[in-house]
């Protein structure tokens, strides 16, 4: 009697592998292998045509002696930290507001999601127009109405301001995601907690610090770590808005696909980025997913 059951188990296992194998095969060849081959490529002078030549640690040497690399690492850190803090705080604020009942709340809730779902390319053009030196409303208000600047200029193209614009853009684009996750958790808080607190005479602030925040702690933590990971990878949202903010992915892109096409160096930078990323991912996996 035992044999057929054992057979069934074996059959199931075989079927399981058969069904999942195509996916694993594809992920293996086109994700795992390429990431690994960055290691290999980073020791070569990579050429478009002809064979690559082995150059040892030269790529790494070139990178760490290049002040541009450290500038871009620094830019990346500022970008990632401020966008993560910004999206989380704004998302939290908006979630708290949208958790209150009011008329047409469903409409408000859908409209807020628009920045997150709209294609990057579309909204990037809209932002570019808003900050356009000739036609944009931002220059109209700051120059003609508020006299903050003496004359119109290209704010997005100006290295002094472009990083700020890129950060604000990313916060605008991604806060709905934070808002969505936080709102979901807020709605699951039992209202009787607040009622009990009311009876005890707790102020709104006390209720927030002692009831709401502890409830949100876990989601907030996972949000922050996910945002750190994702924003560290961001390319489109920076590059399409302005090419003057060189976060790490943009720097890699310029190194590898413009000028001298230093793909070997590009691979080396990608690898460095990979190790920084792994660190955050492991935190996420350990603390949030608790594997």
């Amino acid at each position, binding site marked *: 009697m035992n044999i057929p059951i054992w057979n069934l188990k074996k059959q199931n296992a075989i079927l399981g592998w058969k069904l999942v194998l195509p996916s694993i095969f594809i992920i293996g060849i086109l994700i795992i292998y390429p990431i690994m081959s*960055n290691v290999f490529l980073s020791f070569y002078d990579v050429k478009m045509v002809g064979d690559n030549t082995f150059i040892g640690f030269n790529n790494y040497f070139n990178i760490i002696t290049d002040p541009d690399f450290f500038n871009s690492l620094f830019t990346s850190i500022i970008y990632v930290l401020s966008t993560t803090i910004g999206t989380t705080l704004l998302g939290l604020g908006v979630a708290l507001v949208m958790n209150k009942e009011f008329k047409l709340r469903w409409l408000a809730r859908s409209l807020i999601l628009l920045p997150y779902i709209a294609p990057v390319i579309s909204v990037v053009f809209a932002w570019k127009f808003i900050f356009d030196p000739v036609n944009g409303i931002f220059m109209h208000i700051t120059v003609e109405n508020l006299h903050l600047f003496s004359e119109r200029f290209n704010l997005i193209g100006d290295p002094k301001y472009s990083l700020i614009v890129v950060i604000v853009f990313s916060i605008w684009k991604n806060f709905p995601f934070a808002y969505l996750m936080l709102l979901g958790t807020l709605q699951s808080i039992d209202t009787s907690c607040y009622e009990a607190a009311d009876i005890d005479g707790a102020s709104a602030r006390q209720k927030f610090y002692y009831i709401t925040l502890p409830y949100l702690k876990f989601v907030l933590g996972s949000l922050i770590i996910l945002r750190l990971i994702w924003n560290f990878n961001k390319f489109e949202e920076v590059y399409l808005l302005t090419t003057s903010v060189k976060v790490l*992915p943009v720097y890699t892109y310029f190194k590898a696909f413009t000028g001298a096409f230093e793909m070997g160096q590009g691979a080396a930078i990608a690898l460095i980025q990979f190790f920084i990323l792994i660190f955050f991912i492991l935190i996420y996996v350990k603390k949030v997913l608790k594997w």
Partner: protein
Amino acid sequence: MVVKRTNILRKTGFFILVISIILFSIFPFIQMLSTSLKYQWDWGNPSLIPKIINLDAYKELLGFDQQELDVPDSIRKLLDNPELSEESKENILNNYRSTGDVFPFLTYFRNSFILSFFAALISVILAIFGAYSFTRLEYRGRGSIRRGVLFVYMFGGILLLIPLYQMAVKSGLASTEVGTAITLVIIYMVLVLPVSLYMLGNYFRTIPYSLEESAMLEGCSRIKAIIKIVIPLSMPVISTIFIYAFMIAWNEYLFASVFLKSYPDIYTLPFGLNSLFQSKHAIWDRIMAASVLTATPIICLFMVIQKNLVKGLTEGSSK
């Protein structure tokens, strides 16, 4: 009295807060729509309502009125000169003719659609069987597969770009237009496969196993049970994931910009529009109309899947 007044104050304050949040979120969209409907002389006007509605940009992008010419008066006078040959007249006119070649929006739209559609379709089909396997069938290693999928999802495209490009070049795929298109479909499919597997896996765990079991007791094979029971039951979630995958591919710029550079015929919307924006000047009306037309299908699709997607996206963090 005092209580009442603070109440009213509080309500107005709250109302203003809600309105400003909404305005902050949608202002760029209003700006986009507004500029797409304005004439050039109206662009610098900060008012969002066009003085005169101008539909030319949309007409041009969608391929109506391609022959309509916008020739300045001075050039018209020049053209009236009888000494000018027909040929040179034609040449001058061509400079002002806005044809599909100048702004091939529909071509980009079609390319983006085809690439995204096939990438999403293949990845969803693979994901259905893959996710079913690691949620329903028992074998050693299935837990690691499920986790590995999420792990892979965290790596950004830039880490894959150089090696994948090298692979495409060295294998010869990047040297033909068809090969490049196929390469991009495969890359997009891979980029969305991990998240599809992950979201579908989460969903399959919520379907009661007894349904498949009873089908199999009645003599269905496992594969048949998947096709006849699991897939129809999961259709809302499957279509959600399909659309989500479609949206990711529709937005992709990084790989498109590297792989498509020498094949203008298969430019996608993000890459095509950005190249046009950089190479031409004073095309705000058309760029904005193109932005509206690029965003509209995505926003409509999102409205369809909103509920399911919100659930799927928030699952990973709230558990």
